[in-house]
């Protein structure tokens, strides 16, 4: 790259987008490194897709700028930008065969017929679709269409690939399989991926870094471990994983400290053995037991007046064993450093009532 290795592949500076009175994106600053698998995570309406569309050039920003490889492209049309998009609905051309779809970008760039064929065949092979080149998109399954869309975007060798909830329409098994394939493909081609999703697990498992969006702003940017283990706001704690917060009176009583703290459910044990020197403990009563096959989820009302969720692996227990714990008093214990202080923003934002993907 002429711009040098330190130049970010994508840089957003003070990006804003308003639709009438609604501010969809409010002041986003972001740098995405070359070759990175970067996810933008957030609930619907948090502005993540709008940011993606501004990078692609489909929406002009109200303010701020978009830089690709150091070049300001804010005012350029989509066809002048070296990025390609995989659309949520795949957007395959229905009147063209799979091969014609994949060749489209090359044909537009006036690539010769022979080279076009070769590169399209290679792209289809990379997504394991080589047998289906002559089919129409209507004759393909959802997962196959998804891969055609990928091949069509990758065949023109963009610097950055934008993916707008590409796995959203697939069922769970296929989605998990495609997650693995996408990650492998990204490593293979070495292209920067910018991946939009509302699925926190998807973001955590695939990404090098994650940006969590909330009301058009970035609440936190970091590696999956940082975002999960050290959530920057109560919103991030709730949206990425389960909201398990201790605050106010309960925090003072249990932890002896002021503030709001997040404890991940799997870090808490309720096996009854006495707490060690490194652990904090609290007594409570089991309000609800949810058996989920591999794990069991306990909702525990603390004597100090907060409610915590505890996840335990079902190493030896069965559903009958755990169900018997309902209504029983228990003693919870966790390593003291796992109660992470969560800074509450000056203007408190409402916590999501229920995160759709809190438990997986």
């Amino acid at each position, binding site marked *: 790259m002429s711009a040098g290795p330190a130049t970010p592949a994508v840089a957003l500076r003070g990006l804003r987008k308003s639709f009438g009175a609604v501010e969809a994106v409010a002041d986003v600053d972001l740098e995405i490194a070359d070759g990175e698998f970067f996810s933008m995570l957030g609930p619907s309406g948090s502005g993540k897709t709008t940011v993606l569309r501004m990078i*692609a050039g489909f929406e002009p920003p109200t303010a701020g700028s978009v830089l690709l490889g150091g070049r300001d492209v804010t005012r350029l*049309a989509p066809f002048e930008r070296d990025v390609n998009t995989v659309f949520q609905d795949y*957007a*395959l*051309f229905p009147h063209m065969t799979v091969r014609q779809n994949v060749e489209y*970008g090359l044909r537009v760039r006036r690539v010769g017929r022979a080279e076009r064929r070769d590169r399209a065949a290679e792209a289809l092979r990379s997504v394991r679709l080589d047998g289906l080149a002559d089919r129409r998109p209507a004759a393909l399954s959802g997962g196959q269409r998804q891969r055609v869309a990928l091949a069509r*975007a990758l065949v*023109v060798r963009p610097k950055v690939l934008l993916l707008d909830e590409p796995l959203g329409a697939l069922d769970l098994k296929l989605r998990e399989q495609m997650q693995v394939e996408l990650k492998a493909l990204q490593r293979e081609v070495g292209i920067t991926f910018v991946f939009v999703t509302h699925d926190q697990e998807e973001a955590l498992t695939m990404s090098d870094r994650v940006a969590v969006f909330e009301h058009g702003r970035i609440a936190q940017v970091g590696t999956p471990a940082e975002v999960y283990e050290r959530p920057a706001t109560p919103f991030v704690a709730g949206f990425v994983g389960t909201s398990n917060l201790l605050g106010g009176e309960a925090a003072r009583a249990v932890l002896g400290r002021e503030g709001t703290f997040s404890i991940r459910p799997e870090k808490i044990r309720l096996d009854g053995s006495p707490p060690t020197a490194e652990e904090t403990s609290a007594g409570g009563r089991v309000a609800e037991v949810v058996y989920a096959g591999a794990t069991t989820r306990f909702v525990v009302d603390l004597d100090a007046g907060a409610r915590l969720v505890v996840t335990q692996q079902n190493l030896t227990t069965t559903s009958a064993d755990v169900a018997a714990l309902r209504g029983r008093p228990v003693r919870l214990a966790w390593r003291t450093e796992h109660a992470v202080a969560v800074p509450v923003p000056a203007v408190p934002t409402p916590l999501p009532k229920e995160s759709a993907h809190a438990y997986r």
Partner: protein
Amino acid sequence: MATSTLDRPAGGATAARGPVRRLSAWLHRHAGVRLAALLAAPLFWLVVAYLGALAVLFVSALWTVNGFTGEVVRQPTLDNFRTIVTDEVYRTVALRSVGVAAAVTVIDTLIALPMAFYMAKVAKPRHRRWLVVAILTPLWASYLVKAYAWRVLLANGGPVDWLFGGPGSGPGYGLGATVLVLAYLWLPYMILPIYAGLERLPDSLLEASADLGARAGRTFRAVVLPVVVPSVIAGSIFTFSLSLGDYITVQIVGGKTQLIGNLVYVNIGAANNLPFAAALATIPVLIMVGYLVAVRRSGALEEL
């Protein structure tokens, strides 16, 4: 005990069923009767009123008129068709009619494509409804009034003349005026199907094309046009057949121009030769059948 109390009201409801309910239940079990009830009226209309009238037309085209008494001679003969095929005048008029219909269709397509594209893809969604209303409004006005309005517009020294720079500078009445007015009259029939077709075209297809490097022109040719071809054909069937059958507009703004419709009209009225009029009327029918076969052959309808 619990099951028996549940059973009793259900049994009571069966006994209390009225005749309407029983009929519904009976129909539910007899799918064939249901289908017959649904299709009886439309099938009667299609077979008797529609195909029946067409059959009478073909049969009467084989009859002749006694030149002396003016009575219809019900003797099957191909004389009428022989006259149409051999006489130069009818061939010229038929070709002229097809030419007018084709010209009207091409003009309407060229105007309707950008208009429908604007309505379906560029205009704000809340404006779309009003644009559709605006396109439909002329259809509420009488055909005759609109044709006469154009007669005034095209009159010697009228507004169109004035636009072209003085009396006598405009196209005046004639073949050109006929094409112009027919194109005006049938334009909504071309815009609406194309608009409907474009509305079904997802925006993401246009974005994907731009994303892959295509400029607007290329996107229009490679993505929009192939997707709307069936809609254009649907619209062209309207504009083509309506133009082919028209005889009033020609009389109003066509000057001395005659189309097939005029000949049919003259033979029914002045010449009192209904069988020959019927024979002439089969020409547009055959042309439309030929057009539909060609459209089917082209495979354009398979994308529907």
